[in-house]
């Protein structure tokens, strides 16, 4: 039985206190009916005796303590899902905003999901070719991985994400593929960039969009990524599709979370973010993966802008501890005009080792990858030294390394947003660049491989 209450006692920021309530459960969804007939949604944050603290999902403007009514619906926040979601646009609360017909859901799913049993996961090991050398060659993406892009304000992370969505494929296979895109508090222009890119390439028909723009209620941002992930889980694990989830921008999400936490007067952790930020982010990120009993997979690319390009800021920091690597964009590289401006050395894909090698990419992949990394690192060090002391102070070997580093940035990293390289092209380019150095420096590559692939 659903009862209505007119006992709203307090409204402060995103929080509301309702008194003399019976039978309400923790995390239950509620509806607030305003005097003018508007309906807004809220969620139970705390049950304390007969008092209930709820968090609003929309703005509190127009709420009236005397006249507004609250009803609790007896279930958590849910999303109606169906295969017809593909090609549709929804707002942050899962309602269609593309002017199309209302979705007839096959079923309703709780947006919080449930933890995946680690004993039921499959370890991600299928190589995804993104056509981008710095990712395929050095920080290989595999199916079921969560690989965030750490960016900064004004860097072209959107172009990179769109390029991945456009070019990503598992080689030699033709499988059902879908993109779920969640815009969390980004500007109209940024969202429009993605939508028109999806339209241009025809990807829009296999894309589900959840849009919460900067102008929408900040508090809605807490549910937007979860809506998107619920849709992704349905498509992946019940419709057996391979889903690429792009969430941008996680920083806006974390700020909405901080707002709620501050309103509750919780003891803050670093920089005012709540102590449970790690757990909260993890419950989203960990929904990526592959699991038994289903053909599909969720590969996740969350994008976040690092405040002040600071990697130790809590949002990138905690994200890095949960995700399986990170692609970091660098302002220096962008200024030099290298696109995509990937900062190769601190970027990392933790799952690469299982996705590369013979039968997956090519036998020489692991060795050349390590060799390119360490040679580039040494080359950059040599260049730094050169800035301080001049070229003459370098040993002849260091000069070669410096030359290698320049060529590497110019050719390997700087491929632009439209070039789609196969993994063989990427690997061959790697060998070509390595041939700047003497053969005896190839210490990270097995001698047999050097013999076979060394460019004369």
């Amino acid at each position, binding site marked *: 039985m659903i009862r209505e209450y007119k006992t709203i006692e307090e409204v402060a920021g995103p929080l509301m206190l309702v008194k003399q309530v019976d*039978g*309400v*459960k*923790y*995390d*239950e969804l509620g509806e607030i009916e305003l005097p003018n007939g508007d309906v807004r949604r809220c969620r139970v*944050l*705390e*049950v*304390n*005796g*007969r008092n209930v603290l709820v968090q609003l999902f929309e703005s509190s403007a127009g709420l009236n303590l005397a006249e507004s009514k609250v009803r609790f619906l007896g279930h958590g926040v849910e999303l109606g899902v169906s295969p017809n979601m593909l090609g549709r646009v929804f707002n942050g609360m899962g309602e269609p905003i593309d002017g199309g017909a209302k979705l007839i859901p096959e079923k309703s799913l709780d947006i*919080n999901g*449930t*933890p*995946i*049993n*680690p*004993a039921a*996961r499959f*370890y*991600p090991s299928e190589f995804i070719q993104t056509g981008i050398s710095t990712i395929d060659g050095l920080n290989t993406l595999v199916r079921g991985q969560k690989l965030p892009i750490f960016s900064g304000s004004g860097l072209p992370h959107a172009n990179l994400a769109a390029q991945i969505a456009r070019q990503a494929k598992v080689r030699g296979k033709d499988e059902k593929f879908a993109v779920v895109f969640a815009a969390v508090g980004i500007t109209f222009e940024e969202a429009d960039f993605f939508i028109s890119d999806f339209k241009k390439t025809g990807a829009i028909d296999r894309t589900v969009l959840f849009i919460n723009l900067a102008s929408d209620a900040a508090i809605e941002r807490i549910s937007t990524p979860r809506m998107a992930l619920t849709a992704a889980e349905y498509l992946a*694990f019940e419709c057996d599709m391979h889903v690429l989830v792009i969430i941008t921008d996680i920083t806006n999400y974390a700020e909405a979370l901080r707002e709620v936490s501050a309103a509750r007067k919780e*003891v*803050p*952790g670093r920089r005012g973010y709540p*102590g*449970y930020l*790690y*757990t909260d982010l*993890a*419950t989203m990120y*960990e929904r990526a*993966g592959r*699991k*038994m*009993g*289903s053909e599909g997979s969720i590969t996740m690319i969350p994008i976040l802008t690092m405040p002040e390009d600071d990697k*130790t800021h*809590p949002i990138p*920091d*905690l994200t*890095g501890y*949960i995700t*399986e690597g*990170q692609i970091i964009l660098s302002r220096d590289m962008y200024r030099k005009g290298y696109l995509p401006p990937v900062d190769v*050395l*601190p970027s*990392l894909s933790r799952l690469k*080792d299982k996705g590369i090698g013979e039968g997956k990419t090519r036998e020489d992949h*692991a060795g050349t990858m390590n060799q390119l*990394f*360490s040679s580039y*690192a040494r080359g950059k060090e040599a260049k730094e*030294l050169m800035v*301080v002391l001049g070229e003459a*102070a370098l*040993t*002849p070997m260091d000069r070669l390394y410096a030359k290698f580093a320049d060529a590497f940035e110019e050719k390997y990293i700087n491929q632009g947003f439209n070039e789609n390289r196969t993994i063989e092209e990427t690997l061959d380019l790697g060998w070509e660049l390595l041939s700047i150095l003497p053969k*005896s420096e190839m210490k990270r590559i097995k001698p047999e491989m050097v013999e076979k692939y060394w460019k004369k």
Partner: protein
Amino acid sequence: MIEGKILKVSGPLVIAEGMREANMFDVVRVGEKRLIGEIIEMHGDRASIQVYEETAGIGRGDKVVSTGAPLSVELGPGLITNIYDGIQRPLEAMREKCGANITKGIDEPALDRTKRWHFVPALKFGDTVEAGDVYGTVQETEVLVHKIMVPPGKKGTVVDLREGEYRITDRIGKIKLEDGTIEEITLMQKWPVRVSRPYAQKLPPVEPMISGQRVIDALFPIAKGGTACVPGPFGSGKTVVQHQLAKWSDVDLVVYIGCGERGNEMTDVLREFPELQDPRTGKSLMMRTVLIANTSDMPVAAREASIYTGITIAEYYRDMGYSVAVIADSTSRWAEALREMSGRLEEMPGEEGYPAYLTSRLAQFYERAGKVICLGSDGREGALSAIGAVSPQGGDISEPVTQATLRIVKVFWGLDASLAYRRHFPAINWLNSYSLYRDRLSDWFRDNVSKSWMDNTARLLKTLQIENDLQEIVKLVGVDALSAEDRMTLELAQSIREDFLQQNAFEDTDSFTELDKQNALIELIFSFGDKANKAIATGADIQSVSELPVRERIGRAKAIPYESYKTEYAKIDAEITEQLDALTAKAAADADFI
């Protein structure tokens, strides 16, 4: 049966009234779904309960029932090769029962009730027994014999004990206790996780836990029964170091606790370990592994319990006289779980919001490690080593969890992001890491590896330290300003870093290195250094020395298989002499020419 009603729900914290009779730390079942929780505070008849499962759907007035017992683990045959969640529910069995996702309120016993084990008695009718004595044994896995022991606190006479095939709850025999009562014996016993299992006496650790990881064994060794921590920012290879230790350490059993970490990492262990071969027994590594998984998407309260669940299982095997390693990844997530509960209990926060009791809780955990004489009349010795990863925010080790850990543990393997960027793995920084066991273990190394081991490894550290000083100069004035001798030291240090310290965990021949091969490799590198120094003294030019072809051979020496390393290293050493002699001769000839 004590039954209360819920007053308040706030995330994993539930407050119930009508609980005056309940005991602190009793396990309770909450709500209709019978979620598992634990009483952590009492105020009058109100009990604060931390619930180990997601509390969505719980409300005021729901029932809370006390089980009257503290949070305990089941100990008996069947633990090994299994994977459990933070409160010892078997994940594999849960998957079979309810699918790929973890649903709420599942009740599944930790140990398989249907499997039969072959029990062989070691005692006979009329034998007197005391706590810790071994009734008999069960072959638990191919490599491990499970000893069925008299539980702590019991003493009496065996009145019945029979060989046979038993399920773990079946009666295998009876003992008559001192007070005349008859007690039935089963293969299984229970133990509360927050209480450490008793032992007869603690001993100082004097034997190294050999990991096969060169930077650890040679520079910063850990003792069997010792404690270590691995702090590092994300991406510096904490998890790979932990996995390597779990794979290759020379212990009888590994308890691997994935505490608030990635689900895929646990899956990796679960899928990879059965395929890997233990270099000592030749059998699958899974035969000596117990996994505890509280992944980061699982409820946070169970994270707090997972560490205790893991170490209690480890103590149980230690009591059988085995050497056990507990590897916890990561203790920071455990500390965060403490912080979250503390915040919900509205306690006064300490540093960075962590509760004031963080240090003492951490100390209690690590203090459960050690080398001990076990209970029981045979005086067997067991060891429990504890290794914890720490994930400091922003890689800043001045944060409270790292600092509290460092005050307790004896070994510090500091991971360094800048090494990781250069793909120097394991990225253990040799300048700030330390091991307080080095001296205590020196006798063992002298007797069991080589007399030269301690001197060699000390020289490694010293050379690396000198390199660091020289690098400061190079950064200011360039490498040309250094003397030939100093430049040779730099070459030698580079060789140590690249040819000895770097180790590829994903390369079969390099993933594990035996101690004698490690020593031989050090000696090979120093042999080059010493001979090159002589050559330079007699006129050879540093540039040509550093470009000798033999250096590539030294660079690949670490990957030479154990069976052939002696002959191969001798060959390389001969090449070193030959090529340096040729250089010296050429230098002499040039000098004559001028």
